[in-house]
């Protein structure tokens, strides 16, 4: 019954995990703040091309998004393999763009309408035919400010040979 009993050798003390929740919360808050909830669920493949002479789109509320690309695997059987346009949450036709722009404009304040920009998020494999059709349609409704959304990178590297 000695008071100074030798500690059992070899056993490591357990790591104190009391601060683990704090660390996890810190990460959680970071992601909560950095997250932008996607407005649209993409139903198409959308791998953007690369470019380096890019400018930022500053006012998010003044941007209308038009997506285009091949239907993703889930929708292939239904919508085929050809590149298509997606507006909001559904596939659309070129002729639907005018109505889409009108609806977007109606939702904004009148003084903001001239500053609206249309962001074209087009898959890099798409053909220019589709893009040209979209552009023609935008010209018809006088939505002339456009932005070809791209990733930052070397435009030449992204090209397939």
């Amino acid at each position, binding site marked *: 019954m000695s008071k100074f009993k030798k500690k059992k050798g070899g056993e490591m003390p357990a790591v104190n995990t009391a601060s683990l929740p704090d660390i996890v919360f810190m990460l959680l808050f970071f992601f909560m703040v950095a997250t932008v909830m*996607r407005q649209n669920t993409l139903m198409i493949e959308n791998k953007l091309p690369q470019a380096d002479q890019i400018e930022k789109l*500053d006012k998010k509320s003044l941007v209308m998004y038009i997506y285009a690309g091949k239907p993703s695997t889930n929708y292939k059987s239904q919508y085929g393999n050809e590149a298509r346009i997606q507006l909001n949450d559904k596939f659309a036709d070129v002729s639907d763009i005018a109505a889409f722009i009108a609806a977007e404009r109606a939702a904004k304040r009148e003084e903001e309408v001239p500053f609206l920009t249309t962001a074209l998020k087009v898959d890099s494999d798409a*053909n*220019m035919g589709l*893009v040209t059709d979209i552009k023609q349609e935008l*010209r018809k409704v*006088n939505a002339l400010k*456009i932005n070809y959304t791209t*990733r930052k990178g070397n435009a030449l590297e992204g090209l397939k040979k």
Partner: protein
Amino acid sequence: MAKRAAPEVNAGSMADIAFLLLIFFLVTTTIETDSGLNRKLPPMEESDEDVIIKEKNIFQLEVNRKNQLFLKTGGEEKIIEIKDLRESAVTFLDNGGGTGDSACKYCQGKKNPRSSDNFDKAIISLQNDRATEYDTYIAVQNEIIAAYNELRNREFKRAFPTLDMNFVEAENAYGDARTTPATKAKLKEKLEQIKTLVPQKFSEAEPKSN
């Protein structure tokens, strides 16, 4: 009666809950790309009057269905690589072959009489095929913008050497929310001046249908 001590809440599962939330946000996060090439489409109404442009002032690009780039300027026609496009575009814009009224004050080019007169007269035109791939088109657009930016940077530095920034940096500073309104007003004036000096005269022809 003895006061009963409130039992302590077991916080052991707090980490689990936090992890669950963390994983949810990790999965749903998409880092949105919100930058790209800004362009302005031409208005729809057709002007009846035909503008007469000298052939030497046009830098005519055509991208065909096989993503090859054809260049027609100054009376010659050739296939060029996209990587050489920026250089040729700068050479064309900066040529300064004009004399008299259309002489170019700041051009530093070779003054080839068969190429463009001055910044203001030089036009880059692009035509693509409907089967051209989008990324080739973006690469071409990117190189054209790069050529203009190169010249604008040079002219901005020449015109405002005290500012210690180039055109692109100045434009970014102008768009930055942290810049004060007073600085913005000054920058805007300078940017406009350079934009008028080196205007982006870029035209897109309707694509060929096949």
